[in-house]
């Protein structure tokens, strides 16, 4: 077993207090809860995650930081069930439901959402039709008409700064890096997941776009949604201000703290954190 360190800061006591409070209240509130329990995973035979423990509940914003190669994006891909990643141990539980061996679509339908770091282009699949098909799978209870759905979609597109003309384009095909990220956020707004994992959502965005995306994330934030923001840099965390910051190093979470931890990393990098592996 490895040790996890708590990063001391001036706000530490307050945060821990709130954390405990939430744990006490969780049963009555029925907030969504994602439990990543001692998760190990490998890709192409190489062990990347070596026992990750993390719990994300509704109303919480967690940031996962770490140096390159720590396994941050692997965690995102493993959470969504990318078939190239093999889970060797541990479990992923969402609202008491074990998602560990489940397909990506089952995870999505259970309310888990990953905004990909580098969303792929799917040539020929029209963005609007894709969103409609996805929405119908995730929210089968909503029987609203196609036109109503598209009207709603257009409102959100305006908010994330994507022109309506994107509706008839192929998914991510010919999109700039920024447009792809905006589309990821649009999907989050439309599919309304319970647990949102944002993998490097800030990469490829200019300052204005970053602001816009942060605004959208804040708008979507509520007690019914938990966020896990995977990021290499601190800059998005200035706008979003996570309550919890975790440092992933060599496949394990080696340190937990509050947003002041991210500030220190911005200044000093990761070298000062003791490598526990």
């Amino acid at each position, binding site marked *: 077993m490895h040790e996890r360190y708590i990063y001391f800061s001036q706000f530490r006591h307050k945060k821990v207090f709130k954390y405990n409070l939430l744990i006490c209240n969780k049963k009555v509130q029925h907030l969504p809860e994602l439990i990543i329990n001692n998760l190990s995973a490998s890709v192409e035979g190489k062990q990347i995650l070596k026992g990750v423990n993390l719990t994300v509940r509704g109303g919480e914003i967690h940031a996962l930081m770490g140096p390159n190669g720590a396994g941050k994006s692997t965690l995102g891909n493993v959470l*969504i*069930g*990318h*078939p*190239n990643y093999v889970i060797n141990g541990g479990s992923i539980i969402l609202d008491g439901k074990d998602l560990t061996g489940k*397909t*990506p*679509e089952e*995870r*999505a*339908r259970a309310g888990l*959402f*990953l905004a*990909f770091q580098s*969303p*792929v*282009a*799917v*040539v*020929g*699949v*029209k963005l*609007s*039709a*894709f969103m*409609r*098909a*996805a*929405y119908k*799978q*995730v929210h089968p209870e909503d029987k609203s008409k*196609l*036109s109503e759905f*598209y009207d709603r979609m257009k409102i959100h597109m305006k908010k994330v700064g994507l022109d309506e003309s994107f509706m008839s384009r*192929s*998914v991510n095909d010919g999109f700039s890096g920024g447009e792809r990220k905006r589309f990821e956020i649009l*999907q989050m707004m439309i*599919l309304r997941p319970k647990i949102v994992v944002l993998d490097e959502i800030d990469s490829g965005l200019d300052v204005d776009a970053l602001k816009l995306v942060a605004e959208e994330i804040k708008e979507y934030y509520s007690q019914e949604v938990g966020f896990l923001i995977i990021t290499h840099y601190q800059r998005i965390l200035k706008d979003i201000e996570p309550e919890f910051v975790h440092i992933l190093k060599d496949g394990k979470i080696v340190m937990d703290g509050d947003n002041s931890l991210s500030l220190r990393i911005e200044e000093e990098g990761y070298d000062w954190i003791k490598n526990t592996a």
Partner: protein
Amino acid sequence: METEYSKEEEMEKLLEDLKKSNVRKEDWEFHDNLQPVYSTGAGLNRKIVEEISEIKKEPEWMRRFRLKALEIFQSKPVPTWGPDLSGIDWENTKYYTRPDEVTTNNWDEVPDQIKDTFQKLGVPEMEQKYLAGSVAQYDSEGVYHNLRKVWEDKGVLFMDLDLALKTYPDLVKDYFCKAVPPTDNKFAALNGAVWSGGSFLYVPKGVKIDMPLQTYFRMNGEQTGQFEHTIVVADEGSSVHYIEGCTAPRYEKNSLHSAIVEIYVNKNAHARYTSVQNWSKSVYNMPTKRAWVEENGQMEWVGGSLGSKVTMLYPSSYLRGPHASAHNLNVSLAGPGTIKDTGAKALHLAPYTSSRIVAKSISIEDGKAIYRGLLRMNKGAVHSKSHVQCDALLINDESQSFTFPHDEIYEPTATFGHEATVGRIGTDELTYLRSRGLSEDEASSMIVLGFLDDVMKEIPMEFAVEMNRLIKLEMNKLGAVG
């Protein structure tokens, strides 16, 4: 905006239907235990060719034509510039197999077993629903032909070519092997020697047929060859849409299909030829298809190559008169272990001619899809235009796609362009769609239908559905994709 929605609603419904449909390959790979009433047995020589001509009681010129074609066939080497054809067993192929004595225009008179086969394939149903007429061929001979009276009254002729040769020998002689002479290639020569069945469709001047006419070809015997010869004549100012569908059971030993299709589009006429080929994976499919297009004539080729082990097919348009145009649209599916060497040829022989070629291919597993095309613009074909577009979709990492365009441009005022794209249904693409809640089936269907989207309105809806089903079937056989 409203119309756009309704189109998508239609697509949504289609996708839902697809989810429900559960067609298995056995649905057309079954074979009948029908004993042919006559077969020339395996192998090919002068005696067998004479025997075929004898059985058919053909005129002397046809007998001589066959023998000449046989000589040409024997003198030509097997082409080696394309896919490997060493799997064709020339010695053990049965070149002529006759299922029954008669051909009829009454379904009730078709032998029960053959009738059942065509019924299982949905042929009579289609005729009732949306065809102006149909011909059904079983192995070497046509077994059924019918044409709605309204078209018969206008002088339209539609029957199998053997019957046409008996009834209208002079008319047939005017067109037979004019566009595709036996000297063209080895397989055309073979067809010239042993041809049997195929359709003859003649549309008189000014007659515009608004419903399609269809021929359905069924190959039942093992190691048999089917060598039908089809002639479509669209006389001046006429308009016609002719459809062909083909299936065969799957056998261990290879069968050979080597057809000739000749289409004559006269002045101001319009012809559309649609073929959907779904041969089993034991069939070598080597047809030669060619159209002669005269002044202001329009030729449209719409092709779907789904089955077969190897297909080599390059529908050609000879644009012989000013303002003649050709439009090729071909969709090929190269399933595991199969090769689709397909494409198109456009020969611009007159001024102001135009051609547009759209070729789409999908390769699954180690399937290989090749686009091979010829574009020739002769000196004097002033201001002629051509555009070639090749799109490939690869399903697995080992899937392959090649493009071999060949251009010969001798006219400086002519313009032409090429475009090529390659897409992939990789694990990443599927996972992306699935991570938003789409099932694997739904995700791959969306990609495939999306890939075909710009050709969907050109191809029959049933065909698009069938194509999608086949792709799903192939992908399901692989287990989980990715």
